[in-house]
């Protein structure tokens, strides 16, 4: 009996260790597989060139620019909203009030909504409702300007998706600001808002930074929300104004891999595009985790 127990114990440790190894191995395998498939295409021209010959040759520059613009416009919306919500939840709201609980519930629910539903929401709300409404006011009658998919609506849709990411990250770092600091600020005669602005926020800037980075990583990688709110298959020009459509790395991979006329011919480009996207989100996430880790070390010491 004793012996069996020992074997069982060893078995559990070994099996669980194997699971860890399996997960990390598959992570490395995906990275390696995608890199080795696309490495011969990964040239400077590929990064800075436009697609040529009906997308079978050339680069992905417009898709990179589109993705960067998307996450920039998205950040402008989601970082302030997320940060302010986190400040409210942690600094102002009383923990027991119904209101706080409702906001918290809203944030939790928001982070669980499927990304495709965000896409539908973007279409139903931003394009059909806000955009069409704006057209009625601003545009010539019968002309569609805002009431169609464009980079602004895609970015706004994505911003709503990434708000919870920012909130969670900022709130976590607000928790690490010691109450002594707040008390010291107040004791010196600063008002609550002054204390928050001059003491609490500077001390939790790392959380805002990680939140922003994680949100950008998420926004760059998600495709479902922009499927019908602004991403385009191919555009000859870069987006120049908010009502333009845009190309996007993730959408580019999706279209090239499933809908292009000759999937085999563009396989190398698909791999290389996937690698570029993967490296972007991977390194963003890496930086965020590193900042968080360094900060935790600092707190401990």
């Amino acid at each position, binding site marked *: 009996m004793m012996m069996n*127990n020992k074997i069982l114990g060893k078995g559990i440790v070994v099996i669980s260790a194997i699971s860890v190894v399996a*997960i990390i191995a598959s992570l490395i395998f995906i990275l390696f597989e995608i890199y080795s498939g696309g490495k011969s295409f990964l040239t400077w021209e590929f990064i800075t060139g436009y697609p040529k010959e009906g997308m079978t040759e050339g680069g992905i520059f417009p898709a990179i620019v589109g993705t960067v613009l998307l996450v920039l416009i998205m950040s402008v919306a989601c970082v302030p909203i997320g940060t302010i*919500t986190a400040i409210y939840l942690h600094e102002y709201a009383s923990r027991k009030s119904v209101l706080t609980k409702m906001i918290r519930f809203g944030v939790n629910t928001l982070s*669980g909504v499927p990304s495709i539903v965000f896409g539908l929401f973007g279409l139903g709300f931003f394009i059909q409702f806000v955009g069409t409404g704006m057209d009625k006011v601003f545009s010539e009658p019968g002309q569609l300007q805002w009431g169609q998919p464009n980079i602004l609506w895609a970015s706004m849709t994505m911003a709503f998706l990434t708000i919870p990411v920012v909130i969670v990250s900022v709130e976590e770092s607000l928790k690490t600001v010691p109450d002594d600091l707040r008390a010291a600020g107040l004791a010196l005669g600063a008002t609550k808002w002054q204390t928050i602005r001059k003491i609490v926020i500077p001390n939790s800037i790392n959380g805002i930074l990680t939140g922003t980075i994680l949100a950008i990583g998420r926004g760059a*990688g998600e495709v479902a929300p922009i499927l019908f709110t602004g991403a385009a298959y191919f555009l000859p020009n870069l987006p120049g104004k908010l009502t333009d459509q845009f190309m996007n790395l993730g959408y580019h991979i999706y279209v090239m891999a499933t809908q292009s006329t000759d999937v085999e011919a563009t396989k190398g480009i698909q791999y290389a595009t996937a690698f570029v996207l993967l490296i972007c989100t991977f390194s963003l996430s890496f930086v965020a985790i590193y900042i968080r880790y360094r900060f935790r070390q600092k707190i401990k010491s």
Partner: protein
Amino acid sequence: MFIKKKNNGNSLSRKFRLGEFLAEYIIKSVSFISLAVIVLIFVFVFREAAPIFSPEEKKINTEEFLQSETYGEEPSDSSPSNSLEGYSSFNGDGTGDVADFKNLTGKDWQPVGENPKYGLIPIFIGSLKVTIIAILFGAPIAILAAIYSSLFANKKLREFIKPAIELLASFPSVVIGFFALITIATIVQNIFGVSYRLNAFVGGVAMALAVIPIVYTVTEDSLTAVPKYMSEASLALGATKWQTALFVVMPAATPGIFAALLLGFGRAFGETMIVLMATGNAPLTSFNIFEPVRTMSATVGAEMAEVVFGDTHYTVLFFIGVLLFIITFVINAIAEFYVRARLMKRFRGE
């Protein structure tokens, strides 16, 4: 947390400061946005799906919408069920193009053609099939990995494992879908010799990659949240490390692990890009895991770009969105409330 106290003493009474007042109210109102977004999502996705519930009204709406342009310029989906015939001209005669209860609960999903069929059964089963395969594959691995990193690994190793698995969460689903489409599908075909290269199994395995990080993180959190005194008491009584892990820590954390499974389920059920790329997208009602399936989310993703604004197909797709929203909402709410309450009770020893 701040200590909020109002000074009601006369000499110390608070001065009214406009800046303070504004700051607090602006912050307060901005923080309502997340709540408002949830309501807006429900209202506006529901609004576009509403004509389903009142067919009479729908006809008027479609007339209006017919004048608006068709949407999107993407090339047609290569899958057979998605040919563009019948899309360009709305079946104006209206014969059979109604999405009533009978049509929605039918066994066929054929939204294009003379008599469009909007049976949601096959795509619901498709979603369920892929999700269950993903959970069966991903959850045991994720839970075991969480057990290892929180209970067996030493501190240094844990500080490597945790971020490494969190990095897996940063893989965009479109990249996982692409990987599934190219690599996993080939591997599965080589091993099982299946007749359809893209099938529910391939999609499920790929989905497991998306489910693992979330199940791992939540399980790990709930395992480390088990109070130290419980495991210390067990060790003090002479139990070994693994006995403590298996018979003390694990049972205490079961609600948390259950929550992890639910959250993983919700994530997999709503995930779009992986299933859109890796499952073959054929709306078949079958329980064979090696046949292609089409899920609810993939249906929306594939067909929304090609429908006419406001026609029945369009509203049915939005209706699928409503269903997805409600299903994931309920699953997350259960995970949130029921499980958290159980956990709290257990740890406080009530």
